[in-house]
Structure formats: C-alpha cells, structure tokens
C-alpha cells in the first residue's frame, strides 16, 4: 500500500467496511457526487451506488435522526457532519437518542453508528469552522469519542469504530488531513477503541495529547530532547472512555505530566485527566499536572489563530516549568 494522508485513511476505512458489510451506509451533505466537503468520501458513490452513499438535503437534525432509525432497523449508518460546528442543530438527536437508546431500551436496541465530523483550528477558518468541542460528546454517557492523529490510525480506528457496537463520535483533525503521509498495511488493520498508545518513550515527563495536537506535542518533545529532557508522549486516540491504565502506568514512572489540547481550557479533557491522576496517584506525583490548551474563547479569526493554538514552544515551555518543581 502506498503512503497515504489522514483523509485517505478515512476514505480507505469507509471503502473497506462498505465492501465487507452491505449494511454499512454513508449519508450527508455532498458525500456522494462531490465526494464530501473535504473529499473524505470520494469514489464511494461510484463503487457502492447512490443507495449506500446518500446525498442528503441540508438538514443535520434530520440526518442524525434518520441514522437513529436506520440503526434501529439493522443498518450501520455513518453520517457525516461537514464541520463539527454544524453538528449542534443535531445535538438533541445525538444527546437524546444516539447516546441513550441502548440504555433507554434496556439493551434491546443498540445504536451502532459512527458520526464523522472534522474539528479543530489551523485551517485559517474561524469560529464554528475551527472549534474543538470533544468535551461535549465526552461528557455524554453512552457515546465514545475517537480522535485519530495519523493516516494509519485514522484507517484502523475508523474500521474499529464501524465494527464497534456502541455509537462513536469520530472527530477528525482537519488541520492535519493532508499534512503528512504514512504507510498503511495492505491487510485491513484495526485498532482497539478505548486504548491509548505510548508513541515516544521518556523518563522525565509524560505529555498526553491527541488529534491535531500530536505533531505539535512530538515536536515539543524533540525540542526538549535537545536539552536532555526525555519526554514520554501518549496519544490518547480514544478521548472517552479514557485509557486510565496507560496514562497512570506512564505517569507513575515519570512523576510528571502535561496534557495538551486545543479545546478551551475550562472543563476540557485535560481537567478530567488531571482529576483522575490526582484521584489515583496523587502521592506519586512530583509536580502538579500541567496543561496547555486553547483559551476560553471561540477560536479567533486567522490573524490570531496560531496564537490561540498550543504551539510546540508553548508546550515545551510548560514542560520546563513543570520540571522545575
């Protein structure tokens, strides 16, 4: 298999799963003829036809609501929201139905579906085309939230999400859709949902990130390495439920931790990770767990976007501060 981009990883997983299981259908605005606003679904309609690659009218609430009905009746729908910022008109369907159906029907009706949406800043858009609101979905019991950070992971995690019996919000880091390429296996690869991965080993501090913040965090780790600081880096991959085990095992060794996300600081995923570390291994920590995040504001216009996003410099600075304690 040639090297592919992250968005090609998404596309590949969709193609593979649609070929494997005829109950898998893709729906959304412009997913068919146009191949999706970011071209994630390109080529699908030619291969699987308009019955399975459904161009819908502009109606997010209707799209997700329909997907609920489809899932109730034996299909595995994969609705696309063009931007995560447009998903809020469907918020009630996700919160009230997608997330709770299995629970509400006391296990009689599962809700196998993957809601795909691109999120995040860094593409010179702004506000509702740039936001990172994974905490909304992570805060909702009954949903799983998966965020890939590389082409290979996008493919393997999306495959897993489609096979997964619970509903998954698949949050795609659009800023790195085409940022770099990676080799993927010819054989279909699947990664476990709910598992984090140590992507760089180190002994001085654990840096935890996901999605579009991964390349920046790894860059910070390289900057620190030049100074003799060995940072361990964890890619969460699944934001909810958290892989507490992997995080705790690492931080226990390093004694220090730093969480990075571009979502706003307050009530963000970092707050939850810090709370868990405090609950579980407070007395093993050498320093308070730090976080580098977006600010508590809507993502600003492009002129100030890079200022808003955690940069490798900001991440490395914060790591150095933590190491001083």
């Amino acid at each position: 298999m040639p090297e592919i981009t992250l968005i090609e990883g998404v596309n590949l997983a969709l193609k593979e799963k649609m070929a494997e299981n005829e109950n898998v259908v893709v729906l959304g605005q412009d997913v068919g003829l146009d191949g999706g606003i970011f071209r994630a679904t390109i080529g699908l309609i030619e291969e699987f036809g308009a019955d399975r690659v459904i161009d819908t009218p502009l109606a997010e609430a209707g799209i997700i609501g329909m997907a609920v009905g489809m899932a109730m009746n034996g299909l595995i729908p994969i609705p696309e929201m063009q931007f995560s910022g447009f998903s809020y008109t469907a918020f009630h369907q996700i919160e009230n139905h997608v997330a709770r159906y299995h629970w509400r029907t006391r296990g009689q009706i599962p809700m196998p579906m993957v809601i795909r949406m691109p999120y995040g800043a860094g593409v010179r858009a702004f506000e509702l085309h740039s936001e990172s609101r994974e905490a909304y979905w992570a805060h909702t019991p009954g949903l799983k939230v998966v965020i890939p950070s590389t082409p290979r992971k996008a493919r393997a995690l999306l495959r897993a999400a489609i096979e997964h019996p619970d509903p998954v919000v698949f949050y795609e880091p659009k800023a790195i859709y085409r940022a770099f390429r990676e080799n993927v296996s010819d054989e279909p690869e699947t990664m476990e949902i709910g598992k984090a991965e140590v992507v760089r080993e180190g002994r001085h501090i654990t840096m935890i990130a996901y999605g579009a913040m991964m390349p920046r965090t790894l860059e910070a780790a390289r900057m620190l390495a030049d100074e003799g600081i060995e940072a361990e880096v964890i890619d969460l991959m699944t934001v909810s439920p958290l892989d507490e085990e992997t995080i705790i095992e690492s931080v226990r060794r390093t004694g220090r931790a730093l969480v990075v996300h571009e979502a706003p600081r307050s009530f963000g995923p970092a707050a939850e990770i810090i709370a868990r570390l405090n609950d579980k291994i407070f007395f093993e920590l050498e320093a308070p767990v730090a976080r580098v995040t977006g600010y508590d504001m809507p993502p600003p216009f492009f002129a100030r976007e890079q200022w808003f996003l955690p940069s490798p410099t900001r991440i490395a600075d914060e790591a150095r501060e933590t190491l001083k304690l």
Partner: protein
Amino acid sequence: MAKRAGKSGARATQAKTRAKKSPSATRASARKTSSKPASKGEAKALGAKVTDAKASAKKTPPPGHDHPDPYAHLFADEYHREYEASHEEMLGFYRQMLRIRRFEEKAGQLYGMGLIGGFLHLYIGEEAVAVGFDSAAGPQDRVVTGYRCHGHALIAGCSPKSLMAELTGRAPGLCKGKGGSMHMFAPDHRFYGGHGIVGAPAPLGTGLAFAAKYRGEDAVSLTFFGDGATNQGQVYESFNMAVLWKLPVVYVIENNHYAMGTSVDRASGQKDLHKRGESLGVPGMLVDGMNVFKVRAAAEEAIAYIRSGRGPILVEVKTYRYRGHSMSDPAKYRPREEVQEVRAHHDPIELLKERMLDAGIGEAEIKKIDRAVKQEIDEAADFARHAAEPEPDELYRDVLIEEA
C-alpha cells in the same frame, strides 16, 4: 434603509414614495409598478414560466383571506410587475449593484493573494436581490441573512473599508477583524448579520419581527436565506410561529439553484420553494431575481402586505451565483456553459444598464459611477491590506460582558 442608502451616498434612492408610509402612499407607490412580462428567454433560464400578469391577477387568493383580496396578484405563478424607476433611482440601483460586484471581485482577489483566510462566499450575480429589497425597505426595517452577507452589509450602509478590513481580519474591521466574512454585524444600520449556520437566520428574523411588533414599531424584518436552507427544520418552526403571531417578517429565499454542490432538484421534494410555507399559512411569491425592477416591485408589495397586518410572507427570488460556493469549489455539480450562459444573457447589472441606456441615461453618467465605485473599492482594499491586526488581548474581550 432608505436612510441608510442615503447615508452611503445613494441619494437617488432616497426620499421616494415608499411602501412603509401611510396606506395611501403605499397604494401610490404600488401604482408605480407596471406589469411588463419578462422576455421569454430571460424567464426561461431561471426556470420560470412566462404568464400573463392580468390572468394571474384573477387567481383565487390564498385560503383564509377574504375575497376580493387586493394582494391576490402577489401569489400568481410568477410575479411580473416591474417598478417604474426614475432616472435617479436607476442610477442609485446601478451604483449599489456595482458596489457589491466590485467589492466582491476585489475580495476574491485579496483572497487569492492570501490576505483573506478561511471561507469567502461571494454574492456576484445576486446583486439585484439585496438592492431590490433594500431600496424598498424603510429606515426602521431590519435585515438578517446568512454567510453570503457582504453585499447586504454594504448596502445596509457599512463602509467598504470596514467590511474589507473585516475580511482581512484587521482591527478596524466592522467586527474588529474577529468575525470575518461570515459574521458581520451592524446594528446601527439595522443589519443583524452575517450567520455561518445555514437556516439559522430564519428564527432570528422571526424574533426580530416579534420584538418589533411587541414594541409597537412599524418595522418589518427582512430575513434572507438560501434554497438549501429551506431544508432545515428551524425554517418551518419559524414559519409556524410567524403565522401564529402574525409577525411582520418577509422570508426571502435567495434561490441560486445550488446549495454548495447540491442542486435544488437533488435536494428538494417540493421544488417550488415559494410553496414551502403554504400548509403553514405563509403565502409565497416567486420573483425573477435577475431583474432589479421586479425585485423592487415585489419587495415593495410584500412589505406593504406585511404592514397591512396580515402576518408573514415568503418571497422566492430566483437568482444565480457566478462564482463557486466558497473559494474552493470543484464545480462538478453544474456545467460551465450554464454559468457562461447566465453571465452572458441574464446578468442583472447588464440588464439594468440596458434599461438605463434605453431610458436615455448617457454613457458618461454611467461611466462616472463606474469610476467612483472603482475608486471607493480600491481605497477599501488598500485600507484593508495595511490596517493593523487586532492585539492578542483583544481576543478575550466580549466573550463575556466584563465589568470595567
């Protein structure tokens, strides 16, 4: 908005008989409209039927309305009256439409130079819609629209400098460079945005109308959205409430035939979008949006209808966008010839220009406007390129209302 147009220099469209005035003034101005049918080709390209205006006028009024209904002709298959504009008014329309077009072209250039980020939705081809409605509205009326908003903001009275600087994300921009292309607001000019979420303006305009009625203002809310937006549920929730409370809102569907890459045909069961309000009690008009005289006449009558206290009305305006949906658009959804055809034969500015020449307005006078508009827009672009960016600490401001 007549006042606003005046402020921005279009004195020609000022101080005319307006629908907003006393009922007699309304009738007087309605009389100014004639019923010239569109040329066949023109209407055909827009998917409209050419019908005889007199025959349409005999149609039964919408259900629930007493007979005889002075507004029955509004709901004919296609609205055919044309506003009889004075020379001055024509020059005013021309100037405003040209300002929009040149502004948008310039914005497209700045985007190409990397000075504008993200998305940029241009209104080129659709100018007659905004200008027709704006010129018919009164200074107390309000406008709310979607993300294709620069033209609306411009003729609402915002300076091109403030708008262009908003696009380039600079501090002196209309919203301090923090809103960008889709989120422009100027409540001083009764322009309420500028919304990135498709369909969202519908309930907002309904709420503006509610407040106007509640406060006893004689103000109409002009609520614009696209053909694609008509498939959003909140549009119908709005229609129902507007009828329920007889709210003074004109819903204007800017039907440019496409929602991003999806044509109306591929997204709509009921493709006659002006009929979309019928079962909820919102009567609908269908208007050729490439002819500013028709849009103006229709707008005037729609506004008069609302001021008569009958509740909301829906106006579907058939128009066309020449450019891609935003700046990157694979344009697989329409043949190139279609765009060329509309540009060549149905351009709203060209049509207006022809009419002006026919009416005896000299080339020289038209050229004078061309030059003035070019200069105004060039200056705006210069300003927007060189203005300062907002300071970082500006960004926290206004997230919450801070106590000083």
